[in-house]
């Protein structure tokens, strides 16, 4: 995008004043290089979102923004139901509550090295990944309803995970307001064999090394130290979430006109929050959030099992579990008063700052961990939410770097075997069911996540805490 199209407010804040049907300004957080690299659709989409009814303050885009479905990926927008605000399927995504869970071991890299192959094999055998992979867990109708209401707490009651996990998950592991009755039979059927599975595409389970610390105090309160081994899980609500997104996307595309919502782009299909279809989607989406939380809770448990089999006595403690595709009702200060608004974070992560009442005691001083997945090559980052992020973007931050090249282009550029061998030469073991899948996920296919997190820090959205280097990558 050309920087001249924006009013540059600071090194990392770019603004478009309302024009046409925009009700609020659009604000993109990025440095100049990232703005220049962003596709033009980002400008179209972030300004289109600004036209939607009931939007408050501004339509935001994060430093990793790229072309999405109506909303840019990396888009943040809040709506007031009392002002006719809307809820949008594209503003949440097809993988509802896709997110990242980071778990800490007591091990150092030196402890893991002699067992790396065995650990990679154990994880790959324990966590089903890839298209057609099947979980062992079968839920009858009643159990599925319980899972959709109970999220990670339901999983814990069934024996997956530890009690201490719950407070380290957004919403303390249970999304309130879930309405399982609004989740269709088809969505339940699509989830039938998928509990405890990783999925495919950019989903992963990685064993990583804390390679660099940027903020010693916060790192210490998070339990991160250089050389410590961590395990991260990136996946979402699986088939159930995808089916809900699919069904409501079409329903809203049909209904928006009837509600008198002028859509600049049909992809922005949405509905008034206070409408029957808006409420049905809200209830179903919250149920899908619980599905994602339950799924990561189960996979975390499976990972604990695999780790202790490969390295007897090894344990994992949950640092935090974040979601980056949600719409949540949260209190925020707007024009001096606190209002409950519905915040869409599409490919954007919640980033509550220090002191936030929703954070558990152990994190109140540091702020919420924000987990940013990178590619197999660039590694990942742990950030911390800041107080400033509240006024900047309703306490939101980026979620990952985004692709530099299409899947097709990546598959033509690299062979899966070649990627696996090159990473192995760097000490990174890859286990995957699909050679083509690995090629499409090649490190070179992704943008530099380092530039994204630097811009997020400079913009005040979050603070850099640590950089994690992969040791083992399990991919679907």
């Amino acid at each position, binding site marked *: 995008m050309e920087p001249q199209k924006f009013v540059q407010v600071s090194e990392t804040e770019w603004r478009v004043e309302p024009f046409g049907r925009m009700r609020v300004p659009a604000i993109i957080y990025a440095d100049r290089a990232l703005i220049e690299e962003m*596709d033009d659709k980002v400008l179209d989409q972030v300004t289109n979102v600004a036209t939607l009814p009931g939007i408050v303050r501004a339509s935001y885009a994060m430093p990793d923004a*790229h*072309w*999405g*479905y*109506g909303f840019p*990926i990396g888009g943040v927008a809040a709506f007031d139901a009392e002002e006719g605000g809307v809820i949008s399927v*594209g503003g949440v*995504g*097809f*993988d509802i509550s896709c997110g990242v869970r980071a778990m800490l071991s007591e091990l150092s890299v030196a402890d893991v090295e002699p067992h790396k192959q065995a650990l990679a094999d154990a994880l790959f055998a324990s966590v089903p990944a*890839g*298209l*057609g*992979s099947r979980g062992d867990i079968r839920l009858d109708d009643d159990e599925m309803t319980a899972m959709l209401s109970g999220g990670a707490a339901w999983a814990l009651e069934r024996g997956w995970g530890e009690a201490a996990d719950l407070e380290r998950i957004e919403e303390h592991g249970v999304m309130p307001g879930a309405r399982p009755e609004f989740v269709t039979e*088809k969505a339940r*059927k*699509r989830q*039938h064999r998928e509990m405890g599975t990783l*999925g*495919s*595409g950019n989903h992963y389970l990685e064993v990583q090394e804390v390679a660099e610390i940027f903020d010693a105090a916060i790192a210490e309160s998070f339990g991160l130290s250089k050389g410590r081994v961590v395990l991260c899980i990136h996946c979402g609500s699986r*088939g159930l979430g*995808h*089916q809900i*997104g*699919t069904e409501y*996307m*079409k329903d809203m*595309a*049909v209904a928006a006109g009837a509600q008198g919502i002028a859509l600049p782009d*049909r*992809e922005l*299909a949405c509905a008034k929050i206070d409408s029957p279809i808006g409420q049905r989607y809200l209830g179903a989406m919250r149920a899908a959030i619980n599905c994602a939380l339950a799924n990561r809770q189960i996979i975390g448990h499976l990972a604990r099992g695999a780790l202790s089999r490969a390295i007897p006595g090894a344990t994992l403690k949950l640092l935090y579990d974040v979601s980056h595709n949600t719409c949540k009702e949260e209190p925020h200060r707007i024009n001096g008063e606190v209002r409950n608004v519905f915040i869409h974070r599409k490919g954007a992560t919640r980033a509550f700052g220090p002191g936030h009442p929703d954070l558990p005691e152990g994190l109140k001083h540091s702020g919420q961990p924000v987990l940013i997945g990178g590619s197999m090559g660039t590694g990942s980052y742990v950030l911390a939410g800041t107080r400033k992020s509240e006024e900047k973007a309703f306490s939101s931050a980026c979620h990952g770097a*985004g*692709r530099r090249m*299409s*899947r*097709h*282009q990546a*598959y033509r550029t690299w062979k899966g075997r070649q990627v696996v061998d090159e990473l192995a030469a760097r000490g990174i073991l890859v286990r995957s*069911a*699909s*050679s*083509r*899948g690995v090629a*499409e996920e090649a490190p070179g296919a992704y943008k530099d996540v380092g530039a994204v997190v630097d811009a997020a820090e400079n913009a005040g959205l979050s603070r850099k805490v640590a950089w994690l280097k992969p040791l083992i990558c399990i991919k*679907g």
Partner: protein
Amino acid sequence: MTNPEPAAKPPMERFELFAHGADVGVRGRGPSRAAAFAEAARAMTAVLTDPDKVKANTHVSVAVEAPDDELLLLEWLNAIIFEMATRDMLFSRFEVSIDDHRLSATLWGEALDRARHEPAVEIKGATLTALKVSREADGSWLAQTVVDV
């Protein structure tokens, strides 16, 4: 005596994938709406694996309807995604008939074989992005959209 070559596909029927950032676009072209829809479905299989690797030995029936052509394409592709996900199957041949905005079809395929098909990704859903069904200048039909992977 050698086997005769299978009849070459009429040049108007074809599918292709197109680039879209994080995901992928599927596009079908054909002499009729139904043919374009069938090719778009084949393009979707191509996102996962080489459609020529998918044997057409089992069939599944599908019927959908929608208020307009484009939402009909969306419903069609999403119906296939649902069948693939719940039956663990891939499909390579599609017999489609469209009457106004009602579509009925037979999907031909086989059970997913992870070793042989090596599926690259999983398709989450068909989206409204770049969704288009149109008659081209040469009279052929085009049907496309982006699928989320």
